């Protein structure tokens, strides 16, 4: 047996032990207070939710908003990151502004967004604002880190702009780009669901908040679990891709 498979096995065992331990603590604490639903009740609500067409509609709404926020965030973040990485003038003008804007708690902008982008548009914009920065920063740093000799090589073989982009720039920043994309998906979920907590007609954020105000804690926790599971799965998949690319 190789050390790697050994490591994988012990990792798996560790994860199972941790899950069992967490479930046990959850089970015990649910007995102590009625606001904490038992794991069994949560699981039941989790399964039943998927038979409810209204719930499925909420899942669809959130998934769609997250997907849109994710894609727009990557494209916009990638474009601005590229500009910052390639142009010293853009860095001088934009960098301080972007750093300051990244420091702003973006959710305070939500009431400003609402009248402009309406209920369904605002949560996408909020998702974009969250997903944007990790891509932007990673791309900008990645582009600046490209060894100058690669550009010299590109010039001596008379590579065109598109060839430079596809054959030098993109592969050279593949690792920071993937890291940015991986962070962007989790943050797109955060932005959209956070927006849904405040004001929306459909979506999982609304489900969570409504379940809370109705005291349906099993429903609330099961939906939160769904969100965590979805973001976690995509992150792990992207993380694996990141390691394969290395």
């Amino acid at each position, binding site marked *: 047996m190789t050390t790697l498979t050994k490591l994988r096995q012990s990792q798996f065992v560790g994860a199972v032990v941790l899950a069992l331990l967490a479930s046990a603590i959850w089970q015990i604490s649910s007995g102590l207070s009625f606001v904490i639903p038992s794991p069994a009740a949560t699981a039941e609500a989790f399964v039943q939710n998927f038979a409810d067409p209204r719930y499925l509609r909420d899942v669809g709404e959130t998934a769609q908003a997250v997907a849109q926020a994710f894609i727009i965030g990557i494209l916009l973040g990638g474009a601005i990151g590229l500009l910052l990485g390639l142009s010293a003038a853009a860095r001088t003008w934009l960098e301080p502004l972007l750093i300051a804007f990244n420091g702003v708690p973006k959710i305070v902008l939500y009431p400003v967004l609402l009248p402009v982008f309406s209920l369904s548009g605002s949560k996408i914009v909020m998702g974009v604002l969250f997903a944007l920065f990790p891509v932007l920063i990673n791309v900008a740093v990645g582009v600046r880190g490209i*060894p*100058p000799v*690669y550009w010299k090589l590109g*010039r*001596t*073989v*008379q590579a065109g702009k598109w060839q430079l982009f596809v054959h030098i720039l993109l*592969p*050279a920043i*593949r690792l920071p780009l993937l890291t940015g994309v991986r962070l962007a998906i989790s943050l797109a979920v955060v932005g959209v669901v956070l927006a849904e907590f405040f004001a929306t007609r459909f979506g999982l954020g609304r489900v969570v908040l409504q379940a809370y105000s109705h005291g349906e804690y099993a429903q609330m926790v099961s939906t939160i679990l769904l969100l965590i599971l979805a973001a976690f799965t995509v992150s792990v998949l992207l993380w694996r891709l990141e390691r394969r690319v290395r």
Partner: protein
Amino acid sequence: MEGIHLNDVHVQFDHPSGITIAVDGVTQQVPPRSFVSIVGPSGCGKSTLLAVIAGLQPATSGSVDINGRRVTGPDRDIGVVFQEDSTLPWRNVRENVEFAMQMAGVSKGERAAKAAAAIELVGLKGFENSYPATLSGGMRQRVALARTLALQPGVVLMDEPFAALDQQTRIFLGAEVRRIWEQTHQTVLFVTHDISEAILLSQQIWVMSYRPGHVIDVIDIDLPDERDASIVSSPRFNELHNRVWTSLQKESMRGFQDVETA
């Protein structure tokens, strides 16, 4: 007008604190299919001169003609091997060697055949599928050399290609370059600060002065064409070494004093 012709090449850089004259009126020629080296102290403008010939850096005044054509910018007929490691880490050896041909739009089949020949020429056969991260610095420079040679450029410019390598690898790779040149007989201009390397490789050496850089001496290397690393111990080699060293010494001292008093 075969070969490389330099006509009164001047290069100067303007900065806030003044003007640096990097190359000060170089008029020289590299005959076709010959191997010429430029030696000079650090900061003498030899790399700048090479960049001008490669079309990477415009001359302030003067001009460069290669095989009858005026150099106005980079050209695929001018192959360049850089000092820095320029292998692309996401491409294996074959893909790296094919890079220049791929940019030039050479068909897949032709690319594969030429890459295989170039890889064999530089002695990397068996490493086609290895990635640069698994290769030594010397092997990576062989990959860069194969990439340049695969395009079969009219002239090959080398900017201290082995400067980052250890002494043994340098001598060994130098002998390899000489062997390859004896097979291809391309016009080569080779920049180095290592006198032994320059004598071992070249038919002619240009000695450049410290700032402002111009050619102060041209020395023909009358060693036999068939030479290997053992020639280093011959009396003629020592005479040539002394000759180059005497030319260089004054210049190196001047550069040294300049740095000391700066």
